[in-house]
């Protein structure tokens, strides 16, 4: 059940490329059992100029209440957040939303990440490794350049296969991450292997992943970002266009993870 609580910043770790990990302490148990893809709404002492909290995927959480998120200065809220000092506090609401399907259900999960879309997939991998399903995962990680690819050592340590792609070719394949992904999906088809795609990242990347999944008829789960005001289903601001009985579902309560076919893009 989501709750509202206060959290104190414990550490603000710079990863390079403008990415930071903010680590918070909070009352024990609040984010226990968070599912990868679930998120929290965070708001600092921002006065009246910035009204609404911002959504962040949980990067990790511990039973003692500590948790972390990863972000980059993007707009007004994230710019304030990357400048936060240990001891600063934020109001948290969470965990919110529905996360990715669990690993180890018979399919190999191909995690496709870009930019600040890494955290839920990083957590998916962490959880899988802890449950002994590390072999059932592979990471496809795209960015503009070397600096966009962070926390790779964790995947290495966990023994998870990683394929990178950068637009400038500085690491891995040159171009978009859908290039190696397509190869991998075609190979799986040739092998008759069961795979599913879990993806989070910039919307253009998600659109490309979706197109690929539809083309090759693979199940793909997309973790979407929509503008959110509340994060818990009351403002109806975060509509996601879908097919099916209703034209819209909600990113914060029905998602943020949606099956690619259902998304009306």
């Amino acid at each position, binding site marked *: 059940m989501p709750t509202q609580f206060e959290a104190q910043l414990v550490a603000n770790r710079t990863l390079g490329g403008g990415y930071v990990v903010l680590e918070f302490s909070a009352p024990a148990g609040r984010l226990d059992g968070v599912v990868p893809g679930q998120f929290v709404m965070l*708001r600092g002492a921002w006065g009246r100029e910035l*009204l609404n909290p911002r959504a962040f995927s949980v990067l990790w959480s511990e039973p003692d209440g500590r948790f972390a998120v990863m972000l980059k200065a993007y707009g007004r809220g994230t710019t304030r957040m990357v400048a936060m000092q240990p001891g600063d506090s934020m109001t948290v*609401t969470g965990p919110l939303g529905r996360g990715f399907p669990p690993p180890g259900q018979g399919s190999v999960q191909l995690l496709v990440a870009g930019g600040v879309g890494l955290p839920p997939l990083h957590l998916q991998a962490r959880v899988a490794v802890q449950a002994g399903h590390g072999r059932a995962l592979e990471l496809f990680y795209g960015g503009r350049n070397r600096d966009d690819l962070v926390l790779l050592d964790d995947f290495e340590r966990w023994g998870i296969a990683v394929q990178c792609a950068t637009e400038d070719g500085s690491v891995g394949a040159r171009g978009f991450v859908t290039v190696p992904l397509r190869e991998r999906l075609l190979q799986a088809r040739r092998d008759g292997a069961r795979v599913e795609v879990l993806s989070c990242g910039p919307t253009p990347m998600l659109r490309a992943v979706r197109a690929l999944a539809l083309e090759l008829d693979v199940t793909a789960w997309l973790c979407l970002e929509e*503008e959110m005001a509340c994060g818990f*289903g009351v*403002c109806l*601001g975060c509509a996601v266009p879908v097919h099916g009985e209703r034209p*819209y579902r909600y990113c914060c309560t029905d998602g943020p993870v949606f099956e690619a076919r259902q998304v009306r893009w």
Partner: protein
Amino acid sequence: MSAPPRTAALPRERVDLRCGFGPLTLPHPILAASGCFAYGQQFADFMDLRRLAGLSTKGISPKPRFGNPLPRICETASGMINSIGLENVGAEAFLRDKLPYLSAAGLSVWVNFFGEDFDGYVECARLLDAGRGHGIDVLEMNISCPNIKKGGIEFGTVPEVAHRLTKACVAATSLPIVVKLTPNVSDVVAMAQAVAEAGAAGVSLINTITAMAIDVRTRRPRIATTYGGLSGPAIKPVALRMVHQVHRALPQLPICGMGGILSGEDALEFIMAGASCVQVGTANFARPDASLRVLDELHALMAELGIATVAEVVGCVQPIEPETPWNPAAASAPDAEAGKR
């Protein structure tokens, strides 16, 4: 004449927060605003719903409605714009699926409603009348939605049209009808007067102000419908002005005030301007317990300022004292020359 400000603080327990809104008696003046509290349930995870005086539901129409395309919201300086599109479950499903929960929680339930045309409004009032005795206290008639197509604008901006519509809805139900007015008018007093004369039990002031934001990179509006409604602290000064105008012109008409309330002090400003109770809207998104914080702060502030009851300060604001008369004949004194360089 209102009483002059007291100076002595009161202990908190000496502050009586109860307040009247027309025929209703509320335990305190803080309600949640329409569209910002859904149908209440979601908030039960975060707060004790029963501490709230009441809530206004998401706007209900005779039939269910899907919402607008996205993006539906964006943030602006001290405000946000929304164009949700009046998405709702429809009157029937509301009565069946949502009302029992609210009624059990013991809140004052204000059902915000609208129709897509004149008859739709009347039909909705009639349908919702079935909720009388089952928890509904008030029908809050939203004639101010910027997002309805034909006729929508006139309902909210032409006094005669609003008068006719109110009269028809009042006749369709025995529940009190509170009309929620739009700020997008030249003369809000004329609107309030028109609906009061048609039998409205009170007015809610204000709905959002029609607004726009542009993404200069995509060269497109930030809201799919181009225009949406501005809410939040940015609009508070406009809301206060309208509450004050209406209260001054129609002191007997109960007013429910709203627009940018984030703190107990904000709520008290509305009450002093003439609101008998207030609604907290956008603030609920910042933190789910926002409305109860407003309540606690209002309580503490009334104690600090020695205000024993809500009634004694409703509309109590007085003009600034006149200045000492000007004596042009007095010689101008020398300037403090030293300072000029």
